[in-house]
């Protein structure tokens, strides 16, 4: 029996050796697998670190408006990526250098000296410099104290010029692979792009504002030019017309005057004739009575007087029109004198008060420190009169008119506001056109505002109008103030 089990024992031993051999092999395989997994894991972690870094840098585009935040963000991301804890940045702007505190340490670490900064801002690529190469013994001592023996400098340029440098402090035992530093450098180009993009955006916005402003100015100047041209050509036309009409008007006025005189005599004579005829029964008297019955001389005489009177009014109006037309072309004759605008307005108010008093509640707001104006007081008065009369015409039954004077920088402003019917948008662009009027045919010549415009323009000023239908109108006249030499 023991022989049988001896044989069995031997087989068992062999089987056990085979089993142990398999075990050793499997153990080696497992160990190898573990090592490979570890290696792959480390690789993966490195890749993750890299993509986290790239993501952090890319997300800095969100902060693009703030230069310092972008640089700070890049510095902190790079410090983390390199697996160290300290660093700072400096920014060169308008010839002055701003250096941040050391992140991960605080204040108390001295700056590099100007020689160092000169060479660093001349770098184009990342660079590692040992602290003893800086030849700055104070700084070197301090850095040694905090365990730093090298600094990585990463320059960031904007439009080809280095404006920022990140300093990352490396402790003695830190070993940084070249690929990792390369990655930092590549990321710094991305930061450059962000900074440059931001500058371009600012320039673009500024240009846009300037262009928009210029555009507005051009539009305004254009409208002024158009208006001036209208006025100029009409001025020429008016001068011609006025000149041509004047002579015939002269004849007619004189003839009407003569006619009036003759009518005086004729009507006297006829009145006496009538008396004679009514007291006589002769043939001629009877014929004369018959003619009178048929023609009705008393009516004819009255009518003739009325006709002459109408002709007079008509001529008077024509003369007014011609006088206005003449003002168009005669604006820069006569000498310009200094006068006070408040006094000028008060005088005009006196003149037109009769026309205003029934409908208008007039309110004044004159600035008593108002500078003098150099110009033709009569013409300016004509403008004010025109405005006040227009204002009162715009008010149907009762309303208010405000007259205000004030100084704004080197201008004198006269503001006349009424609570009348207002001017529609459609008419607003035409109100300064000669002969434009919304009044009935025999109520206005339509020359008032166009003449006013011309007068103000010849004084180097401006008229602006604001109006809302149903609410009222506001005219704002600006005239250059006379400068004081004291």
């Amino acid at each position, binding site marked *: *029996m023991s022989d*049988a*089990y001896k*044989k*069995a024992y*031997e*087989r*068992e*031993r*062999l*089987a*056990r050796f*085979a*089993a142990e051999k*398999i075990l050793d092999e499997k153990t080696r395989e497992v160990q190898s697998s573990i090592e490979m997994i570890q290696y792959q894991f480390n690789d993966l972690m490195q890749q993750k670190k890299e993509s986290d870094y790239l993501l952090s840098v890319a997300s800095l585009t969100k902060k693009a408006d703030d230069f310092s935040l972008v640089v700070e963000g890049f510095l902190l991301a790079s410090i983390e990526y390199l697996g160290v804890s300290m660093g700072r940045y400096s920014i060169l702007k308008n010839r002055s250098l701003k250096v941040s505190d050391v992140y991960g340490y605080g204040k108390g670490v001295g700056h590099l000296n100007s020689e160092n900064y000169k060479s660093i801002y001349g770098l184009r690529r990342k660079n590692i410099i040992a602290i003893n190469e800086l030849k700055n013994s104070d700084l070197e001592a301090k850095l040694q104290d905090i365990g730093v023996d090298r600094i990585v400098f990463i320059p960031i340029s904007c439009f080809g010029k280095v404006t920022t440098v990140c300093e990352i402090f490396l402790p003695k035992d830190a070993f940084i692979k070249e690929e990792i530093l390369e990655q930092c450098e590549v990321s710094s180009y991305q930061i450059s792009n962000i900074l440059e993009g931001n500058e371009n955006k600012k320039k673009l916005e500024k240009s846009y504002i300037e262009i928009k402003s210029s555009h507005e100015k051009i539009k305004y100047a254009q409208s002024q030019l158009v208006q001036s041209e209208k006025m100029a050509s009409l001025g020429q036309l008016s001068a011609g017309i006025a000149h041509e009409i004047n002579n015939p008007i002269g004849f007619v006025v004189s003839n009407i005057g003569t006619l009036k005189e003759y009518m005086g005599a004729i009507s006297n004579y006829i009145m006496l004739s009538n008396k004679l005829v009514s007291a006589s029964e002769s043939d001629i008297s009877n014929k004369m009575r018959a003619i009178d019955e048929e023609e009705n001389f008393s009516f004819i005489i009255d009518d003739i007087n009325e006709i002459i009177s109408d002709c007079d009014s008509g001529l008077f109006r024509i003369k007014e029109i011609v006088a206005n037309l003449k003002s168009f072309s005669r604006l820069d004759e006569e000498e310009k004198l200094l006068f006070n605008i408040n006094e000028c307005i008060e005088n005009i108010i006196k003149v037109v008060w009769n026309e205003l008093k029934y409908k208008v509640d007039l309110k004044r707001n004159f600035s008593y420190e108002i500078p003098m104006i150099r110009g033709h007081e009569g013409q300016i008065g004509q403008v004010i009169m025109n405005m006040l009369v227009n204002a009162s015409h715009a008010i149907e039954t009762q309303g208010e008119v405000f007259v205000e004077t004030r100084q704004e920088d080197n201008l004198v402003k006269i503001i006349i506001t009424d609570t009348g019917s207002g001017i529609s948008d459609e008419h607003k662009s035409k109100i300064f056109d000669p002969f434009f009027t919304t009044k009935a045919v025999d109520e206005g010549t339509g020359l008032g505002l166009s003449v006013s415009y011309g007068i103000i323009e010849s004084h180097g000023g401006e008229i602006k109008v604001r109006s809302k239908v149903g609410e009222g109108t506001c005219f704002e006249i600006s005239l250059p103030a006379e400068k004081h030499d004291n």
Partner: protein
Amino acid sequence: MQGIIFNALEEFVLENADMEVWNSVIEDSKVASGGAYTSGVSYDDAEVVALATNLCEKLGVALNDGLKMFGEFLFGFLLSKGPIEVGNYQTTQMLLAELESVIHRNVKRIHPDAYTPFFEYTPQSENSGELIYRSKRKLCVVAEGLIQGAAKHYGQTVAFDHFHCTHNGDENCQWVLIFSGPN
């Protein structure tokens, strides 16, 4: 054939005969391994054929009967000493349903080079189903023994209707199995 089967065969012989019988079976079979079998190692199928044949001769048992008895024994052996946790099955049907997808799959994980027979069980009712078996070794008799062993373990009885057999030239072995129990 995996070493564990040879270990099972040795145990089977020791249970039903003794070490001397086993020693002489090994000697007579002249197996290349010399009878030293390690569980996770693969050995030539011819060795198990030689051992089984010689054993049945020595014991005076018909080969098929012997194989069936061994199959029944093998179930218990694999259950207790096999490397795979057989899990929480309550019936043979549940085991058969996951034989391929769970048990043989796990075997291949540890022994990628092992050849496992193919089993597919399709239930027809709670107590019956169709089983397909396919293997280069054509050991359907051992398979029946294993199923018998399983049924006994779960307190069931099983009836076999072996209507297709590879020994008859069919592509697969196929049974209808009818279970009763567990009690």
